[in-house]
């Protein structure tokens, strides 16, 4: 270990630009301690209560510290390792999502939903290991690189008005985080293909073979995620290299062929499915480069409780016996393939029943004997997935294009009730909720208008909000960020947070192509730091090798994303500029004209003159009449009195001008109405 660490200290001293030489120089030092690059592929299938199926692909590649083998890689994608080295990324997550995770029926309190349910569009966050003033530059470069890598417009996250710096409410909290989302980004195969290119077998072998594009994009929810952690050049000393975790979470509707023939009475029965029926393909053996390749079937805690396994009471002891048949041949369902192992969840803090995991080794299967797991339901089963402590939803209030309000409402779920009854003996129990909300600059939030309602009663903000961090938006510079820690009483039924905003105005060139569609406000992140979604299956040596299951064991706080909001902003008539130029010029001509007129006129003299004229008793009307008749006759009227005619001539000119302007104005008005 000492040997291993010494190069690192040296490396830190030498600095970044001399990396390459260092690798070459020290490459031979820890030859024997060298770790191999590893790749593993896993697939988790989970039936969902609303007749759907969750498929969660998990591919993990890891590269040992780069000093051990320079910049050469066997399995690990070179593009990613270069990216990590160049921008000194400590941790990064990029997700492309289409559809919305249904927290109510698909659950929100398990590791899959709290780390894989993502907001629609693109979400990117990254932690950098560079000095504070270089972070923004690194972020910009990173967005451009990723945009090129994944054929997406991630480069829009480059401008300071789109990304934010969460202080503490975002889970990987540290000062160097940058977070940005593009809610309206469309996700399609062009993003999936480069993602698959990072896998050593691409989609040509192994579990990735199942990734049939039409059936994937037919699903209800589709989220591809890329998470990488690097301990490269970190000062902590423990160096595990880069771990790249690629997950693809899909929610599909298994359309069993006999669904049409089902009787009305059997309507509630869960659809039976098999890999070939949902993906249209089968797994014909593992990817030869993968260290482990397995498929899991997870039965939810709620489902297990419903199924009433005969040996539920002594579940722990039964799980040890791998051959205990009563776990996979249940009266209510049947598996088409015998599982290789069965795991029973060790303990669950928030639920009485424990979930069951069936494991299938793909290695055993081959081209001739493909792996095609199927689940056939015999009796109708209804259950509920474990939900987040509070169900969060967000909506807009107010009307018109001027102002509005954002409301985040939290509703207690059946889970909370159970939890609260368990904890209420403490007397004063509190439920901590973190809210992280980013609003684009054109939605100008008034932080002083923050109101909190608990059980529909307005409460003082200071009673409920324990901590708040607000960074107000700067026009065209930075988005508004609000981080709030709520301390709610345990017995809360509903809680709501409202905040008012004004809508801003954009320049004509800042409008997106379809401006009338509206502008998206990215999802808010609601996290419950006191609750950890983790599934601990039996601690076994063989289990530690499975990255997916060790991922499940990690304690990650329960997190949920709210809906994306669509705010209609005032959009100009994009053909207006011409009219505006015309009308403004007219008005200004009028203004300057009359002003000059006023300036050069001698009022006193005119008055005196008019008095004199009045004395001469030449009425205005006959004068005008005679002028009109003279004009009609097409002859210039003889200038009887030269000065008055000039003044009245000005008048008639003015009237003409005014009529012209009036005509223009009428036209303009008509044009706009």
């Amino acid at each position: 270990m000492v040997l291993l660490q010494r190069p690192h200290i040296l490396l830190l001293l030498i600095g970044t630009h001399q990396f390459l030489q260092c690798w070459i120089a020290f490459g031979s030092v820890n030859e024997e301690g060298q770790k191999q690059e590893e790749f593993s592929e896993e697939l988790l299938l989970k039936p969902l209560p609303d007749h759907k199926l969750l498929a969660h692909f998990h591919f993990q590649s890891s590269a040992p510290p780069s000093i051990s083998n320079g910049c050469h890689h066997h399995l690990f994608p070179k593009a990613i390792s270069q990216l990590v080295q160049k921008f000194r990324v400590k941790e990064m997550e990029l997700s492309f999502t289409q559809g919305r995770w249904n927290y109510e029926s698909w659950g929100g309190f398990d590791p899959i939903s709290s780390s894989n349910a993502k907001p629609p569009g693109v979400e990117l966050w990254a932690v950098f290991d560079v000095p504070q003033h270089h972070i923004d530059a690194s972020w910009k470069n990173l967005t451009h690189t990723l945009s090129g890598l994944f054929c997406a417009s991630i480069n829009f996250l480059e401008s300071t008005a789109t990304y934010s710096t969460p202080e503490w409410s975002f889970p990987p909290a540290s000062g160097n985080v940058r977070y940005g989302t593009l809610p309206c980004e469309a996700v399609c195969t062009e993003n999936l293909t480069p993602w698959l290119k990072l896998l050593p077998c691409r989609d040509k072998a192994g579990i990735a073979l199942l990734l049939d594009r039409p059936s994937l994009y037919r699903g209800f929810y589709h989220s591809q995620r890329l998470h990488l952690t690097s301990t490269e050049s970190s000062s902590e000393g423990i160096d595990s290299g880069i771990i790249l975790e690629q997950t693809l979470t899909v929610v599909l509707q298994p359309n069993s062929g006999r669904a049409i023939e089902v009787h009305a009475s059997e309507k509630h029965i869960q659809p039976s499915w098999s890999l070939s029926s949902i993906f249209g393909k089968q797994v014909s053996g593992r990817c030869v480069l993968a260290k482990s390749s397995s498929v899991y079937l997870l039965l939810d805690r709620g489902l297990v409780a419903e199924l009433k396994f005969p040996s539920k009471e002594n579940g722990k002891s039964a799980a040890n016996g791998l051959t205990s048949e009563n776990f996979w041949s249940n009266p209510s369902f049947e598996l088409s393939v015998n599982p290789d192992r069965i795991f029973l969840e060790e303990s669950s803090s928030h639920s009485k029943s424990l979930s069951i995991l069936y494991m299938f080794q793909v290695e055993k299967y081959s081209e001739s004997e493909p792996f095609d797991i199927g689940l056939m339901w015999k009796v109708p089963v209804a259950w509920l997935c474990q939900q987040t402590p509070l169900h969060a939803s967000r909506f807009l209030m107010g009307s018109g294009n001027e102002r509005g309000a954002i409301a985040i409402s939290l509703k207690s779920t059946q889970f909370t009730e159970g939890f609260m009854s368990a904890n209420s003996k403490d007397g004063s129990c509190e439920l901590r909720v973190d809210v992280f909300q980013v609003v684009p600059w054109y939605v100008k939030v008034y932080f002083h208008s923050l109101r909190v309602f608990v059980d529909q009663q307005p409460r003082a903000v200071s009673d409920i909000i324990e901590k708040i961090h607000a960074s107000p938006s700067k026009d065209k510079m930075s988005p508004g960020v609000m981080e709030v820690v709520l301390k709610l009483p345990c017995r809360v039924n509903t809680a709501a947070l409202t905040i008012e905003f004004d809508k801003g105005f954009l320049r004509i060139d800042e409008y997106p192509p379809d401006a009338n569609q509206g502008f998206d406000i990215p999802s808010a992140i609601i996290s419950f730091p006191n609750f950890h979604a983790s599934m601990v299956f039996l601690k076994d040596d063989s289990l530690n090798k499975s990255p997916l299951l060790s991922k499940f064991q990690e304690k990650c706080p329960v997190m949920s994303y709210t809906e994306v909001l669509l705010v209609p902003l005032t959009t100009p008539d994009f053909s207006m500029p011409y009219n505006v130029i015309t009308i403004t010029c007219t008005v200004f001509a009028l203004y300057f004209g009359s002003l000059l007129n006023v300036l050069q006129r001698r009022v006193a003299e005119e008055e005196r003159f008019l008095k004199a004229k009045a004395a001469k008793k030449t009425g205005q009307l006959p004068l005008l009449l005679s002028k009109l008749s003279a004009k009609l006759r097409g002859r210039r009227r003889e200038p009887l009195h030269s000065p008055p005619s000039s003044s009245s001539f000005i008048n008639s000119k003015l009237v003409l001008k005014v009529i012209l302007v009036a005509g223009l104005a009428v036209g303009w008005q008509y044009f706009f109405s």
Partner: protein
Amino acid sequence: MEKVKKKIGSFSFWNWVIASIIFRLILIYFPKNLNLSSRPEVSTPLTSFRRLAEGYWLKQSSMSPYAGSMYHGSPLLLSLLGPLTINRIEGQPNHLLYSLVSVIADVVSAMLIRATGQNLRLAYLRSLESLDLVKQIEVSEFLFSGDIAALIYLCNPFTIVACMGLSTSPIENMAVILCLYGACSRLIPLAAFGWVIATHLSLYPAILIIPVIFLLGCGPDSPPRKLFLQRHQQKEVLNQLKLPPRFSWGPIIHFAFWAFLWSVYVLVLCGISLKQFGGLWEMFKSTYGFILTVEDLSPNIGVLWYFFAEELLFDSFPCQYFIYDIAISHSASTPALLLGFCIRCHMFHAQVLSISKFSLYLFGCSTFTVGDSALYLGLLGWFVNELAGKYAILSLPVLWICRVEGVSAMLNHDRKLRNLITGKPQDAKS
């Protein structure tokens, strides 16, 4: 004008004042129903009380009040009015306290207008006396222009709307009126204080320096010296004592000294209140910088809004140079025209100055509210005596209407202009 006189004559001044205050107090209880504070005509980003509350909130949570682009006002207003945004009486509308403050500000302004009007009237009478014209006009026929101006200020809907609309313009107007009051009653420190505060609050009243200099230099209302000389040449008796004073530089230097003193005082206060938050530079950037560059594109009444909106619309178009040209020539011409007006108007009436300056400063102002027009209308009241039949003065309100009512009111403007043109001979006859 005759009608106004009769109306004023039949009611007493104080009854009207009390009536207008009661009217305001009634309206205060329905701010939600009126929803005036959301109107861009009433509260612009510069004067909005809501933004002030946001600035105060930011300051209370130890952030710079100018963080984000919400608040663009003075830090002094934050310390003075900020607490009113939080304190509220149980069971009463939210911003009752601030509404009460703006009612008080309105009443104080009206009183100042009244006092100034009385000053002007006295000065006018004195100058008539010195010209031996008093006998020709009966003093009783002479309107109490101060009372009328104060009532116009208090009772006109613009002021009421500005007062109800939770904007800071009643306070800004009070500062402007304080400056004029000081200048007319020759209280130079007061005038300087008003000028510095008004300029600090909304920058544009800086143009007031021109009329204030004239007022201080020549006295509140002095007939042209030329007139005296002519007159006395006719009589061939030259009474040096009766001759109005020449333009004197003494009070102006005095004024400059006091203005300097007050501005240093204001800046020091601002500096103290913004010590942790970026200091004075931050304030200059986000108040005056904001006023001059108009970063906020929220719509505002008046023609200029179209300018600014289009200037921003055309940001990437070559046309922008054209539009910049107009905008620059416009803003550059405003002071020049103002000066021209001053010289021109000084020849026949010194008072016209204040009006001309106002209308022009309204023209030049980029964000323009009902409060500004209320002020203008109120000050117009000082000159009821002179307004009768003065085309030159009346044309300014017409232009002003053109600006206020915006392009959509073009037709209205035409009608008014036409009325004016057709009405002119009648004026001449009367």
